[in-house]
């Protein structure tokens, strides 16, 4: 992994963030050194250098405290899908709740659009929750006594929007998530997937700047989960809304995420694009995690290519630099020879059978320097 930029080394894979900032992309959430500790005298832990270095278990034995989020820093950029992924107990759900202070962080800095969220009073915080960040929950959190449309309109009702207006808006959202015709049903009469669509519509109805998803599809059947993931991808394509997405499912993270923060024991162990996570795992834990990922469906030909040799730069099929390995395999197999990797008319290199197979067979892992940015 390349963590080269000086001054930002506390952020795993900070180069990415720095680059993005240079690109002029706005930062929505800026999180620095965030801690959430549960237990007696929890507020002492983050500043106590004698215990901050301990492992989770040692910390619990020494202090009786559990650090759910440990010294976490990252930026969420406008318009991206930022995925926080980790196993259960890794602190990811706590982390996302800290963003709107549903769980009060113990220490650290937390900004949204440059405003200090931790310094907000109750009114300001309520406004933030009402209009700027809406959340979708694993177990839906729908009100069982209300109809679908009233559930969707609930956020607007809380804001004090008039009945006719919120009904109209809610109906629009119900159509948008594909529940037209079910407006008068109650949550208990819907399937799990439909209920989560209601949850999604409820969050969308308030037109928030950021959507927060807390393991939204973990409680759903695999096929429906797939549908819902595509729904999220579609929504993101259409609206370009910023999303923070919590999941324990690596496939889901790779499918929906622009960038992924991988958490373990409250810490971010790696932060990067799906290709970086799969192609260049930061440590053995991450490597273990991504072992079963079909690499050819995540990695691109950039990673597989080698420099063009004599004459190769002019012949064979041309592939864009972000072509997936799996697509490249097909092209190479059809042509029978090497294919060119082209970016803006320039030939970056070539891929042949051997290069592609090396990636699939993980023989490339010993070459960490070749990650394309």
């Amino acid at each position: 992994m390349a963590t080269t930029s000086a001054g930002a080394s506390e952020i795993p894979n900070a180069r990415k963030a720095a680059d993005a900032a240079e690109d002029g992309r706005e930062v929505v959430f800026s999180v620095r050194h965030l801690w959430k500790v549960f237990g007696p005298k929890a507020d002492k832990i983050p500043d106590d250098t004698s215990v901050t270095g301990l492992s989770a278990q040692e910390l619990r034995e020494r202090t009786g405290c559990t650090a759910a989020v440990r010294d976490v820093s990252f930026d969420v950029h406008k318009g991206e899908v930022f995925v926080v992924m980790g196993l259960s107990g890794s602190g990811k759900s706590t982390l996302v709740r800290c963003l709107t202070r549903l769980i009060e962080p113990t220490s650290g800095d937390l900004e949204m659009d440059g405003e200090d969220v931790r310094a907000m009073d109750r009114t300001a915080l309520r406004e933030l929750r009402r209009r700027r960040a809406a959340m979708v929950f694993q177990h839906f959190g729908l009100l069982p006594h209300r109809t679908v449309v009233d559930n969707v309109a609930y956020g607007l009702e809380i804001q004090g929007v008039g009945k006719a207006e919120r009904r109209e808006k809610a109906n629009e959202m119900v159509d948008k998530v594909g529940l037209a015709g079910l407006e008068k049903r109650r949550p208990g009469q819907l399937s799990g997937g439909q209920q989560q669509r209601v949850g999604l519509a409820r969050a969308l109805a308030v037109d928030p700047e950021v959507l927060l998803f807390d393991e939204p599809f973990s409680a759903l059947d695999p096929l429906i989960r797939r549908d819902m993931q595509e729904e999220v991808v579609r929504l993101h394509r259409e609206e370009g809304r910023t999303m923070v997405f919590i999941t324990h499912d690596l496939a889901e993270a790779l499918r929906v995420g622009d960038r992924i923060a991988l958490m373990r024991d409250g810490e971010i162990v790696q932060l990067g694009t799906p290709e970086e996570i799969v192609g260049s795992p930061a440590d053995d834990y991450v490597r273990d995690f991504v072992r079963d990922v079909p690499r050819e469906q995540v990695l691109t030909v950039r990673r597989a290519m080698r420099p063009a040799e004599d004459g190769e730069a002019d012949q064979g099929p041309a592939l864009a630099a972000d072509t997936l390995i799996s697509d490249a395999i097909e092209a190479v197999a059809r042509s029978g020879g090497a294919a060119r990797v082209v970016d803006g008319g320039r030939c970056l290199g070539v891929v042949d059978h051997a290069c592609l197979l090396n990636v699939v067979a993980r023989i490339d892992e010993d070459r960490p320097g070749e990650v394309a940015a």
Partner: protein
Amino acid sequence: MSTASAPPATQRGLGADAPKANPARALLGRRGVAKLLLLAVAAAVLVPVVHAAWPGAAWPSALTVDLSGPLGKTSDWIIDNRDNHWLFVYFLGHLSNAVVISVRAVYLLLLALGWAGVTTGVTLIAWRVAGWRIAATALVSLLVSGALGMWVPTMQTLALMVVAVAVSVVVGALLGLAAGLSERLFRILRPVLDTMQVLPAFAYLLPVVLIFGIGVPAALLATVIYAAPPMARLTALGLRGADPGVLEAVSSLGATGRQRLLTARLPLARKELLLGVNQTIMMALSMVVIASMIGAAGLGDRVYQALASVDVGAALSAAIPIVLLAIVMDRTTAAAGARIGAAGNTATAGPAWLRGWQVWTGVAALTALLALAGRLTGSAVWPGAWFVDIAHPVNDFKEWMVDHLYSGVPVIGGTADWAAHFTNWVLNPLRDGLTALPWYGTLLIVAALAWLIGTWRTALTAVLAMAAIGVLGVWKPSMNTLSQVLAALVVTLVLGFGTGVLAAGSKRFEAILRPVLDVMQTMPQFVYLIPVVALFAVGRAPAAAAAVVYALPAVIRITTQGLRQVDPAAMESARSLGATRWQMLRQVQLPLARPALLLAVNQGVVLVLAVVIIGGLVGGGALGYDVVTGLATGDLALGLVAGVAIVCLGLMLDRVTQPTERRTTGKGA
């Protein structure tokens, strides 16, 4: 014993049971033995000392405190100052006036509506809230009440009920709201409410009479004190039991505290709230009937008067409307609860004109119309011609029973013989034994039992409660009451467990049993006295019999449910190992259903005690009789002391049978 065995037992299959059970049981045995040893050591030190100081089995008079003097003085002071002391003039007086006026107003309204108006109104409301079946039941019930010549008493009871339930629900809901929102208040209130729920209704009568004197205010207040706790309890539990996921979602959308309460917490607790209203209504009815002893007119008073002269026919005429009223009220509120609890959108079912305020306007209009029609035809109160006299035939039948069934029936003997045998062979020896047992022996037994089943805390409470009885100087009548409770409890448990096991084993038997239990659990305690008086005349045996009948449904229910809820996987594994039915019952079902069985014992004790006390009205004697005498003769000190002893006895019995885990189900239904 139960401390450690309960949690593993619920999870364990039979395969794992055999090897693990023995060391576990050995450990438990050791723990139980340790407790007993500790107690034995304490006893060995204390008993000789105590015995030397106060020889004799009865509670030593040196250790009693005579409260009759101070209590009598207090009572006299209250009577003297009721008309001029500021506390009465500015507070209690207003309270009592408000009660009298509101009950009177409701009563006059009911009378003004006339039988036609009331019948129409009640039927329509039942139809709207619970459907046409229950509406039909309501209609028939009211007509039957009228035909039995009980229209006016029914209206009196109804008026009292309306006010009592309204006040109880409001008070209970407010308390519950406070306890639901504040953790600290919940911790304070919960044990109080739990304890109030196990105390017999009789215990509440005397204190309110002391303050308000005999009359409607006292009756109403006693009813509210008795009926508000379930509402408070269920409101608090409902508010606390709300799905945290939903509440979090509501917070994440930026709801204020008030919005959270009104749009999420209260609606989410609707089911519990309605269950609370249902239980409050049932308890209020039960108490309104009993409160006839302290000045509540109406059906209860009729039963009370009839029982006093052992006029079974007249008692039955008044009891039938009570039972019908109870069934209608219970089914209506239960159906309303079930409707709201169901996820379906029943609220929007039916044509538009059947919804919302229109239908209620229609109900009101139709009621008014029929009330007017009733008045115009000159039959505001129930028409005298429509009267069916059942008192005489019932009394004739009772005479026939006295002649033919009471004694001398070949082979099986007569009912009076049974009662006599039960009294002579069971109640008397038990009572004499308890009285002859040295008092410290009784305390030790109580301590041992409570400690083995529960914790040292419950044991301490039980012992202190028992000692308080002795200090109050009512040791002997309390032992008498206790003997009746124990005898009735044993009979209840034998019958209840037996029936419960049968019902759990056979779906068909359970289906037959269910409606019977439903009706039995709906009936107020008072009503049970009538059939037993008819069958067994008066005395201690009929009181015990009424207690058995009253407590039986709950015990059967809990047993059946407990056996049914045994982990099916454990049952299946036992069956796959080739266990016989009997083996499954003995080795799997009963051990796994142990928490339920302990709960059944606990509930059984509480319910039996309630009725044994009321049995004082039909010759049960002891503490119940003291309360009745105290009320009848105006000797409030006697009654109050007996009331406190009842409370102590109730506390002791509850704690002794209290499993370590606090139960969550309510009383009765």
